């Protein structure tokens, strides 16, 4: 088409950007603030049925008898299905499901089902999992070691010969994703084609899986995720809810609405694995960590759990690590925002603090001596300044005074990849009426995808962000990867940029004769189009588009590796106040800095940093799955018993984008923001009063117990 070779798409210099790298309002903010945004939960179709699960109340049981018969007597109940009629292997596992005319009728139908269970031994704690009397849970036995690195003898010798040595066991509980919109979907299947509204992190994947369940081709499945109420890693596959909704839809030929209830969500939609880490470490007077051994046990229920391993980000001269899992009869862990990393962070940041104190060294200085990457030095320095570290009186020893309220400061760091993959195919369209759309099958989890998709095209055409419609969350808009590993932006943004770039080149080509110049001379700026040969002669965007006549511009884009990269860093600091009489803990301030290559929407990035810090604050202070160990009852399956941080617990939050990172490429950054916050808080508690809490959450009773001992 063009006589000239098409130039490669390149991001503009930051200084030249008018839309990207600014504070952009979310384009769907209005829909969300008015209640007009339709989530999967909100889909209402004529003739629709509501489906619901019956959960097994035992950690593991034989299903001796499952009687669905009584359901037929329930008014409004339409159908019941057995899901698991032989044996259950985790607490809360669904055994049956019903479909009914209303949610209330579905509840009645669930209660009408009669099940007889036989239980014989199960495990809900690590101890029970290790008990030889516990029946086998996993294929590899109830505990196994699957990773070992380094030389144990060498590392142990290094620890033993160090100037100071510490040894501690750090424990973290199971944390829940707590997406406010539960998992689920609405399936409308007429026997040939299906339309599905799914609360998912992977629209493309859902269309493939639903097609499989319904035995139709993927092209006959339309998946819509206009809005979804949070994912955090738990919403990739269609899950048992998707399979069940498809079964009902197939058998009943009526639209099925199957959204999990809150207890379902807590019991069988995944979680962040817990774990126990036994660390021994030694450091020399010069402030170098010379040896470390780590024994790591992940608690992933019937799954493996996750942990990236130790010594995590720190460099240790000689280290050894052994990692394994202990199974219990509890829900399988799933990916959750930076899977494994917050767990690793809690142990390593604790032990690093312990070593610094043992040496009597400044906590920040000691960290820097054991971090090779200079980015961490600058980031730690920045958060230290912001939190007031350099004016703080207790930098190398904790405050041990008693009787009043003490203030302490702590630190933590994070690492992440965030690079993209060649999956997304996007499109950009310019219509003669002046409207511009940028479309992708990718989804917006609340991260702001829809906003930057439009903004990238707006930047390309010299328009305002509001002049481009970003369309996301529809299988018809092209394939896209799942939003996991913070890979969305780096996978998607280059493909959108590519489409916008091609559309601009085509448009320039079409306008060249009109402007009596070459395509290369056409410029799109400030809502106008002109030729560099004759800058005085300008067309408004609307005029330029009207020239397109009946032929709109349409370009499709693909991944462009050079527009993205990977590798991000972060540092956070927390300032807390501990009441040394009661153990009451208040987080006063959290500061987080994050690099991310080229920032697309600064406002949304700061929101992400805040969000990460707040989720870490919940992990630090409150969040913990509790299961009664002798009866196997779930005691924390709703928000009255599983506490999330709220308004009253909010500290002052400072979210900083690290602008010293001048990489001109896009990188994902949402996940690392959750990695170090709880570690910084735990370290700050110790700094405030000399009490180290080794098992999260940091409840006042644990702090008080420590204060009592040290008194």
């Amino acid at each position, binding site marked *: 088409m063009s006589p000239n070779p098409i130039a490669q798409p390149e991001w503009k210099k930051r200084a030249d950007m008018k839309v990207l790298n600014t504070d952009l309002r979310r384009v769907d903010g209005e829909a969300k603030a008015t*209640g007009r945004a339709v989530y999967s939960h909100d889909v209402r179709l004529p003739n629709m049925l509501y489906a619901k699960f019956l959960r097994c109340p035992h950690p593991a049981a034989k299903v001796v008898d499952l009687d669905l018969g009584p359901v037929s007597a329930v008014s409004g109940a339409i159908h019941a299905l057995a899901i698991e009629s032989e044996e259950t292997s985790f607490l809360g596992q669904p055994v049956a499901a019903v479909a009914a005319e209303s949610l209330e009728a579905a509840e009645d139908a669930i209660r009408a089902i009669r099940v007889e269970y036989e239980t014989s031994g199960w495990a809900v704690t690590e101890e029970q999992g290790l008990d030889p009397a516990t029946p086998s849970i996993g294929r590899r036995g109830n505990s196994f070691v699957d990773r070992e690195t380094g030389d144990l003898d060498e590392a142990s010798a290094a620890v033993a010969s160090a100037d100071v040595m510490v040894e501690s066991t750090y424990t973290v509980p199971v944390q829940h994703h707590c997406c406010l919109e539960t998992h689920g979907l609405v399936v409308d299947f007429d026997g040939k084609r299906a339309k599905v509204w799914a609360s998912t992190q992977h629209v493309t994947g859902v269309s493939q899986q639903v097609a499989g369940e319904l035995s139709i081709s993927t092209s006959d499945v339309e998946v819509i995720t206009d809005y979804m109420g949070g994912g955090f890693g738990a919403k990739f596959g269609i899950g048992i809810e998707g399979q069940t909704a498809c079964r009902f839809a197939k058998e009943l030929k009526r639209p099925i609405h199957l959204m999990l209830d*809150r207890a379902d969500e807590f019991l069988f939609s995944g979680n962040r694995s817990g774990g126990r880490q036994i660390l021994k470490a030694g450091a020399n007077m010069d402030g170098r960590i010379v040896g470390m051994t780590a024994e790591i046990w992940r608690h992933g229920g019937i799954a493996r759990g996750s942990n990236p391993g130790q010594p995590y980000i720190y460099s240790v001269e000689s280290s050894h690590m052994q990692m394994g899992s202990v199974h219990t009869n509890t829900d399988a862990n799933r990916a959750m925002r930076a899977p494994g990393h917050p767990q690793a962070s809690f142990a390593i940041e604790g032990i690093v603090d312990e070593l610094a104190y043992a040496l009597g060294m400044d906590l920040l200085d000691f960290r820097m001596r054991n971090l090779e990457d200079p980015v961490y030095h600058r980031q730690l320095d920045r958060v230290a300044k912001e939190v007031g570290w350099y004016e703080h009186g207790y930098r190398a020893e904790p405050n041990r005074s008693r009787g009043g309220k003490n203030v302490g400061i702590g630190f933590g760091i994070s690492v992440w990849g965030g690079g993209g993959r060649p999956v997304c195919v996007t499109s950009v369209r310019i219509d003669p009426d002046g409207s511009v759309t940028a479309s992708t099958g990718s989804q917006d989890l609340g991260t702001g995808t829809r906003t930057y998709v439009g903004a990238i095209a707006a930047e390309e055409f010299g328009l305002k962000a509001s002049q481009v419609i970003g369309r996301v969350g529809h299988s018809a808009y092209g394939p896209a990867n799942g939003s996991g590993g913070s890979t969305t932006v780096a996978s998607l943004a280059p493909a959108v940029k590519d489409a916008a770039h091609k559309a601009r080149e085509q448009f320039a080509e079409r306008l060249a004769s009109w402007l009596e110049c070459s395509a290369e001379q056409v410029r799109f700026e400030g809502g106008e189009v002109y030729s560099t040969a004759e800058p005085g002669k300008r067309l408004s965007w609307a005029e330029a588009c009207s020239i397109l006549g009946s032929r709109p511009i349409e370009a499709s884009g693909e991944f462009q590796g050079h527009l993205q990269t990977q590798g991000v860093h972060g540092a956070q600091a927390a300032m807390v106040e501990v009441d040394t009489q009661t153990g009451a803990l208040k987080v006063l301030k959290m500061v987080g800095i994050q690099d991310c290559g080229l920032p697309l929407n600064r406002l949304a990035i700061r929101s992400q940093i805040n969000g990460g810090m*707040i989720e870490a604050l919940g992990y630090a202070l409150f969040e913990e799955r509790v299961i009664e160990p002798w009866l196997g009852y779930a005691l924390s399956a*709703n928000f009255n018993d599983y506490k999330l941080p709220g308004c009253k617990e909010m500290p002052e939050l400072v979210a900083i984008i690290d602008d010293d990172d001048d990489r001109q490429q896009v990188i994902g950054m949402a996940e690392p923001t959750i990695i170090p916050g709880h570690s910084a808080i735990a370290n700050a508690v110790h700094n405030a009063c000399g009490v180290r809490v080794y098992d999260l959450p940091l409840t006042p009773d644990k702090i008080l117990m420590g204060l009592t001992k040290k008194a």
Partner: protein
Amino acid sequence: MTEFSDRDSKPGGYTRRSFLKGAGTVAASGVVAQTALAAAPETAEGRALVPRLAGEVEIQLEVNGKTQKVKCEPRTTLLSALRHRVDPPHTGTKLVCDQGACGACTVLLDGEPVCSCMTLAVDAQGREIRTIEGLADGDALSPVQSAFVENDALMCGFCTPGFVMSVTGCLEKNPDASLPEIKTACSGNLCRCGTYPHIFDAAVQAGRQMKQGGTK
């Protein structure tokens, strides 16, 4: 309450929840409920002997200034009535915990923020119900709504309607509300994405604007 107490019932008997939600009808209009419960012995075992309450009654609800007839069961919560039974369904109000722990279902009942999941539909009769759908005037957002958009006080947006209603309830009573007062007003609302700091900014800005403009 764990999920098991919901199931902990004898065949044909009450669950604790359907009993509690059914009991609300005594004070309201459920004639069936009244007779049934009046005869019920006060003991827990006695309650289980009461035949279950079922069936729909027609009630009137005034939602965002419009009154309509709605068929509800005695146990139907206001939340469920809004999301499933009024016409058209008002799905802006969200169901999250169904136990009064998250505030996502907040609506204004005679100007007071309440958890609609903890309010029986029959008990909302004769009262003014305002939901998130009733705040904007056509395309013109309310000051609280526009402040939320401007300050990025929403991410996934699922908690947003509840927060907007709590903040609105607080500021309509007192646009001068201090930040601690706003925090108290929203202390029953949860956001997992972590929009709190931006919600605080938005609420303060909206209060300022409401004081100046006197708009609702």
